[in-house]
């Protein structure tokens, strides 16, 4: 309770002191530390913070239970680091930035602790608005900011309808009462998958992420999508018996994961790539949650269900820290070169800073499932979950899960393709441009913390399993001592020990390093490329790396090779984007048609419209009563 008040006070102080960027950011960091403390306390036992009756049936309720505390901890670790990063990063923008970050953090805090619809909706809207304005901090971003707003508002409307259904059924706004309400479930599900950027609703992210400031992009990618994930967790927990949503989740999740990975493999922009990777990770969370709730009701599949739940939590952890690390490092690199394309930010590791380069490398490796990082553990768990689909009795379900598993596996492969591209060309590439000096101490520190987290969490992943309350999935086998081995099922199906893996890799690395340092008389020569020096125009470009994907999947990417005189380039787009642009064009046309024909300030049309509307209303009441 004390920590709860303290963190709210800190955020409020941060909001008040927004004119002093450093102070405001420090308050935000303090606030997140207290929030994490709240989360840890809440994990031990549920707390009711506030129960304020507004009217007879309407009351505001704030409280913490196990689910919200897990999300609180994860979200506010990443939030705190983003706030710390912003101390230096915000200097590139106006002072309002700190204000928006503090508002969104406070609102996030309330979203995760809200137990009634009204406080949830209010804080939900607050985040949307704060982020909308912070996107606008970069110039010429109106279009991107509005597309973000549009999707967020669609999600809000769906939530409104869901809560309306809740009110209609139970006469209260307490979310916990929405058990078995199919309308509520459907609309809330829609709202939250829009928030999670699942595939048909993802088109805004590529342009918005790349145009918004990097810390805002990190907030968009991690805490904001966490709201969606949190919501899905909540509504699934309320209605575990509705199988159809679980099946939809598995299918949608796997298709969306593949789509995201495909687009990531295709993209050439520095921030679009991790943006699409966000879609992929969130889809994986959705798919594993789907399996968890599909099998929850069968007694014989309890272990699979629990393991799938654990998998979802692991992906959330891995996604949160790896993606934050990636966005923050990329943001640093992007500002240091002031460039958008991956091609133009070569040599981050060598020329910008070692930590930033390492941030991109480690985060990218984690997202491409490189052992023993946390991303590897979570991807292994996901695949193990899908491998166990043979245990389900129903043949059609078995087929669906097998099919989804194939898509997910493809997605993991493609995402590592994309990440390799990012690491190879940006962190390790050759320098193409002079570096701009920016003050970046806190940026480097926060990147270093995240790198440490990504490596360390992989190492201590058995501890996380215990911490999340699933000790049944730990065992020992052969030379591996008891709690260090993660098993995917009982009786044992698949095993992995990230800790031992990490230790072995470390030993081999040290041995190699020792061996290498022994060799002193090594002949060093320039690379052999046909005997001549390699010119800058002769280096392999990012487009060439992506072209194979674009060329092979021509219909999916609408690839066009364009040659105009002395310039040539490849043009490809996201197929779903064409659908949205079609809708946009259609609505523009319809509205212009209406404005020209009906609402053209001609009095006759207006009178006809009013009379028509009057008659239709009368008829409606006449026949419905």
């Amino acid at each position: 309770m004390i920590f709860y008040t303290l963190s709210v006070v800190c955020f409020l102080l941060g909001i008040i002191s927004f004119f002093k960027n450093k102070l405001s950011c420090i308050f935000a960091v303090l606030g997140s530390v207290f929030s994490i403390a709240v989360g840890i306390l809440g994990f031990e036992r549920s707390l009711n913070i506030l129960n304020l009756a507004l009217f007879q049936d309407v009351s505001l309720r704030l409280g913490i239970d196990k689910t919200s505390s897990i999300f609180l901890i994860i979200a506010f670790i990443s939030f705190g680091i983003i706030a710390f990063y912003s101390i230096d990063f915000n200097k590139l923008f106006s002072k309002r930035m700190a204000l928006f970050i503090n508002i969104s953090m406070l609102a996030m805090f309330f979203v995760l602790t809200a137990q009634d619809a009204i406080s949830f909706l209010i804080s939900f809207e607050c985040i949307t608005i704060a982020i909308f304005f912070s996107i606008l901090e970069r110039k010429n971003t109106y279009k991107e900011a509005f597309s973000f707003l549009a999707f967020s508002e669609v999600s809000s409307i769906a939530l409104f309808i869901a809560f309306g259904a809740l009110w209609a059924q139970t006469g209260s706004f307490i979310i916990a009462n929405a058990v078995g309400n199919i309308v509520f479930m459907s609309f809330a599900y829609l709202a939250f998958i829009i928030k999670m950027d699942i595939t048909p609703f993802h088109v805004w992210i590529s342009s918005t992420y790349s145009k918004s400031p990097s810390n805002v992009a990190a907030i968009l990618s991690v805490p904001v999508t966490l709201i969606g994930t949190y919501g899905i967790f909540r509504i699934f927990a309320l209605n575990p018996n509705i199988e159809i949503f679980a099946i939809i989740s598995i299918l949608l999740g796997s298709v969306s994961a593949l789509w995201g990975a495909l687009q990531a493999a295709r993209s050439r922009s520095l921030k679009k790539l991790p943006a699409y990777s966000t879609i992929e990770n969130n889809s994986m969370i959705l798919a594993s949650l789907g399996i968890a709730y599909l099998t929850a009701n069968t007694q014989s599949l309890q272990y699979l269900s629990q393991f799938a739940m654990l998998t979802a939590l692991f992906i959330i952890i891995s996604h949160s820290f790896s993606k934050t690390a990636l966005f923050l490092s990329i943001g640093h690199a992007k500002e240091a070169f002031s460039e958008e394309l991956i091609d133009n930010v070569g040599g981050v590791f060598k020329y910008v800073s070692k930590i930033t380069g390492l941030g991109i490398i480690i985060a990218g490796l984690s997202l491409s499932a490189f052992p023993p990082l946390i991303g590897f553990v979570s991807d292994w768990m996901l695949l193990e979950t899908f491998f166990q689909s043979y245990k389900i009795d129903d043949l059609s379900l078995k087929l669906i899960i097998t099919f989804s598993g194939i898509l997910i596996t493809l997605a993991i492969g493609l995402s590592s393709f994309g990440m390799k591209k990012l690491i190879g060309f940006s962190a390790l590439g050759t320098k193409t441009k002079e570096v701009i000096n920016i003050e970046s101490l806190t940026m480097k520190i926060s990147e270093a913390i995240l790198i440490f987290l990504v490596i360390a969490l992989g190492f201590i992943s058995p501890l996380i399993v215990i911490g999340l309350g699933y000790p049944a999935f730990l065992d020992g086998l052969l030379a591996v001592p008891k709690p260090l081995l993660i098993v995917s099922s009982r009786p044992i199906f698949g095993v992995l020990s990230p800790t031992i893996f990490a230790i072995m890799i470390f030993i081999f690395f040290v041995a190699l390093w020792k061996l290498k340092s022994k060799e002193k008389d090594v002949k060093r020569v320039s690379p052999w490329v046909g005997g001549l020096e390699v010119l800058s125009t002769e280096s392999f470009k990012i487009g060439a790396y992506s072209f194979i994907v674009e060329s092979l999947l021509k219909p999916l990417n609408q690839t066009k090779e364009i040659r105009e005189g002395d310039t040539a380039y490849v043009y490809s787009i996201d197929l779903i984007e064409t659908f949205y642009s079609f809708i946009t064009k259609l609505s523009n046309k319809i509205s212009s048609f209406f404005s020209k024909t009906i609402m053209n300030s001609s009095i006759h049309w207006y009178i006809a419209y009013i009379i028509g509307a009057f008659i239709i209303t009368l008829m409606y009441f006449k026949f419905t009563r």
Partner: protein
Amino acid sequence: MKRLLGIISSDKTEKLLVSSGTFTGLVDLSQKKDFKYYDWLRDRDSVYTDSNITSEEVFNFRLGPLAGANQECSIYHLKTYGERMLAVNIDQTYKSRKIEDLMVGRSFDEAIPLAESVCSNFAFSHSVAFTQAIEEALGLELSGYSKLLRVIFLEIERIYNHIYVIAKLSISAAQKVYSSHLLYLFERCISLNSKYFNSTFLKKIKKVGEVKDFPKELFLNYLEELKKVVNEFKKIYNFSLDSRNYLDRLHNTGILTIEDFYNTGFDGPALKAMNYSLDIREFSKTTKNFKPILEEEGDSLARMIVRAKEVSQSLEIIEESIELFQETQPESPKSLKTSQKRDSGIGQSESASGTITYYVEIKDQKIEFVYISTPSTFLFRAIQKALVGQIFTDFPFTVDSFGAFFCDCAR
């Protein structure tokens, strides 16, 4: 169909060396508008530039000079945004030995080895074309005996060159067994050369006014051996045509059209694969019944088929010539009655990849000016055209099917 073979600018006046099958000779500069490649041919010793694409995504993939893909030292600049070749610039200048300049001021006997070392695998064709030009300038005509010998050696050279090209193609297409067979036959061919004629690449055989004489039985023995090689070749070639895998790689790659001929002016098997022929053997008196082998597709497969069929055709010509040869007796060359000793001459011979043409001006038994027109000069231009728009995988199948050599091209 006429080709521009070269632009000759001795005596400060430019003249065009033009060939149209029956006629080969110098014409006035005013005809240059008929040839689209006049400007390029004037500049044939610099880099073959196709286009300079400048775009952010496009980069230059450099192959060479010392890369495994091209045996000879030269560079292919492939402009690409990945996979597809958008433009190809070929840099042959690394191989340039300036042989035309070296020939000037030398006596005939000194110059023949230079002509032979323009391109050793076409050594006999080069020496024939060169000596023919000198013979024309001197007003000499070869005896029938020597002419027959000339035909025999030209065809021998053609056989081993064609087998070489097909072997290279099969190596590129990863046909291990097939290529091992072909490599063996190729090696056998050039071993036979050194066994019977004392020179692997038929060098030092052609001289001005005569061809080095060998005993008649030697040719009969040689023919027996060659027949075995060619029959073996025919057998495995027919086997190779059953392999869909192999044919698919060659089919529809590196397609050339008649428009490309007007733009580049190539000849040889590449032109025959498009159903046109400018083969000078058709108009020669020594090979009366010669009918060129034609294909229609214009792709790598068609070029390969033309070469394979020409191997058996060459064997027939050799057989015929050796039969005739047994009855003729060696004679010394006779001077032409009508000749008024000109000091310039044009000589031509049909090498395995196209027509080689020499234009020579002489003075006091010494060479004053030489212009060498080689088939590879034009073929590389055609390769440039054929490569554009294809993907990297097709690169070896396209390049190897032409049988163009950089030493022939850069001289």
